[in-house]
């Protein structure tokens, strides 16, 4: 036990000596959370539209107004020709081009089908799809309005033809306003915890290898597990501080609702936080240079926790092989627990399997790190 303490004391002193890194380690996650939560906004709004109105009529202006009234589109440019509009699309200044040809109003007044043309920038497919839906909905609403005036005279025979035959009543659960932040911010807690603690702890042992001071440990009577635990604890404290700061920001800055119990969330985060530090240590035992350690930590922790945890990219959309691959990373389990507690407000009866796996994972990593370390001693 005294072995653990002396390793711990030494590690704390080493961290303390570099307050620069310590400060960054604790406040960087907070800064990044603030930045990302604002930057990672997937809501589709304020789409710049270039409008080529070749008709110059009250009707064509009404059509443009219908588009602007959705609040999603901003008529940002009014080029004179379709060619100029296409150039705006090429330059990425406009994302949608609406071309209303001459004769639009005349066709409507004569009861014919009037045509408009829309060009959508498909470069970012996710937004493009939603943009398409809005464009079509606007067209529907406008058509219903002009058609409605004529249909009114027929209503006696036909009933209300302007009303839709099947009207969907949407019910959005867990995140009723479909607020992007409610989903991005809790997900970022998982990612940020997986990003920083392992990067710090990954250097903890490999640094001594590079400097050669590891030889002193080898010849000392220190047990491998004592060495690992002594290295683990200081980084655990840093990681917990990060968690608390990020959690406070989530609740009080971003006002993400916490539907479930805070106690359960803190309970579930214990194995995750320990796990993040332990993965770093494991990386540290298998690499021999700090640079390699940091890249390996990156590949093992940050990238999968961002890409394969179900945070940005839902797991059910992945190919089966990748769905299985995602089981390898603890972030997947903790992401599920986080959303379950924050947004769904469900209890342990739903997420206990994830918690069990997470705990086993963490214990396994610590044991593996000790074993790997012993091999090096021998």
């Amino acid at each position, binding site marked *: 036990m005294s072995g653990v303490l002396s390793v711990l004391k030494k590690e704390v002193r080493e961290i303390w000596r570099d307050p620069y*890194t310590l400060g960054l380690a604790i406040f960087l996650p907070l800064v990044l959370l603030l930045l990302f939560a604002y930057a990672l906004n997937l809501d589709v709004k*304020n789409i710049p539209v270039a409008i080529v109105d070749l008709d110059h009529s009250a009707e064509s202006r009404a059509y443009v107004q219908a588009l602007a009234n959705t609040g999603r589109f901003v008529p940002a440019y009014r080029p004179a020709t379709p060619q100029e509009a296409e150039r705006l699309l090429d330059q990425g200044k406009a994302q949608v081009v609406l071309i209303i040809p001459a004769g639009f109003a005349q066709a409507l007044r004569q009861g014919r089908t009037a045509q408009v043309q829309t060009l959508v920038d498909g470069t970012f497919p996710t937004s493009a*799809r939603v943009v398409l*839906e809005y464009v079509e909905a606007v067209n529907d609403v406008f058509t219903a309005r002009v058609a409605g005036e004529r249909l009114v005279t027929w209503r006696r025979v036909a009933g209300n033809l302007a009303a839709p035959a099947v009207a969907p009543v949407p019910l*959005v659960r867990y995140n009723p306003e479909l607020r992007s932040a409610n989903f991005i911010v809790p997900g970022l807690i998982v990612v940020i915890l997986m990003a920083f603690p392992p990067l710090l702890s990954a250097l903890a042992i490999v640094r001594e290898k590079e400097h050669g001071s590891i030889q002193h440990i080898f010849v000392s009577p220190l047990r491998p597990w004592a060495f690992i635990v002594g290295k683990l604890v200081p980084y655990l404290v840093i990681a917990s501080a990060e968690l608390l700061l990020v959690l406070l920001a989530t609740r009080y800055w971003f006002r993400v609702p916490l539907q479930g119990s805070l106690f359960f969330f803190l309970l579930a985060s214990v194995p995750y936080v320990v796990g993040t530090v332990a993965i770093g240590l494991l990386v540290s035992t298998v690499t021999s*240079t700090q640079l390699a350690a940091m890249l390996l930590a990156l*590949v093992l922790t940050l990238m999968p926790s961002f890409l394969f945890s179900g945070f*940005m*990219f839902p797991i059910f*959309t992945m190919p089966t092989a990748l769905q299985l691959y995602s089981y390898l990373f603890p972030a997947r389990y903790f992401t599920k627990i986080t959303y379950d507690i924050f947004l769904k407000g469900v209890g342990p009866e739903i997420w206990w399997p994830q918690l069990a796996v997470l705990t086993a994972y963490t214990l396994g990593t610590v044991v593996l790190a000790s074993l790997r370390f012993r091999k090096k001693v021998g």
Partner: protein
Amino acid sequence: MMSRRLWGLMRKEVIQFWRDRALMVLILYTFVEIAICGWALTLDVRNMPVAVYDGDRTAQSRALVDAFARLEGFRLAAQVEDPSDVDALMDAGKVQFALIVPAGFARTLRAGGSAQVQVVVDGTNSSIAGQALAITAGLLRDYNEQILVRRVERVGLARYQLVPRVENMIRIWYMPQLKYAHFIMLTMLTISVLLLGVLVPAAAIVREKEAGTFEQLMMTPITGAELIVAKIAPMIALKLIGLTIGVLMSLWLFDVPLRGSVLLFYAISALMFMSSSGIGVLLGTFARTMQQTLMLAFFILFPLAFLSGTMVPIGNMPRLLQWATYLSPLRYYVEATLGIFLKGVGLDVLWPQTLALAVYGLVLLGVSSARFRKSLA
């Protein structure tokens, strides 16, 4: 004379680089990871587990439910007998979306009324939820259109053609199939270029600082600029190989179109390597230990990567962050890459981006070589 010095330094760097095999493998792996992303990751609705409840049990309701379950992107996961089962399934995360058709659906339709159906969506992932709602709205639009035509015909209004309507001819440009894979392949490629471009030179410099070999180099007549060139050139060569692997994979495995000039892409990529190495070297002059390098690198890399339009469109960000994106070299590189590959535009459109990258790179490399000697003095 100078070139011989430079040559000797480069040889040293290559040898040092070659010794750290793990590092080389990891650099190449970063580009392979792109392939995985292109294959696996999507922000689109795909394979989404849905549940249906048909409380009407008529031919019409079955037709609607079937059409819903067969929609592209949806996978029928459960057919429930009781609408309240949907809640439990959703709580457990087994389904993300549900359509509930109440009893009396067909009767209302036959009477010419407006029938209501309920769509329940798990809003946790707001982007996916919004798209799923849009897909369903599209289905119902087509469905309603058919019914409307039938209703109009039934009451003998053959003059339906005379109803004024607006037909919107929508064309999607650059990526008509809206393939997310193409987008993510290209953006991951640009992120890898930034990541490696910054990390590797920074680490190489700090390693010499930590090992104390820098003082030795400083006693030689080598200038700061020479040292930087010698450190960066071999890495850029290796990274260009990695980049080529990434590009070839995109083209062959994922059919990403290359509509513009490859030459222009490589020229702009070289500029991007220059800019990112400039950031890396600058970092290296500030940091004293590897740990500091890392923290600083992440402090800089994350914002640069996110404020670039790779993860989310720049137009979605608050105004302040939109301005901040002009500070990220990745923004220009992403615009140029997407422009060359997908839009097929050339230098006549992309000259501002190219110019920005060139200025960025020159200024950074200038500043960092000036700081170089000072940081050691």
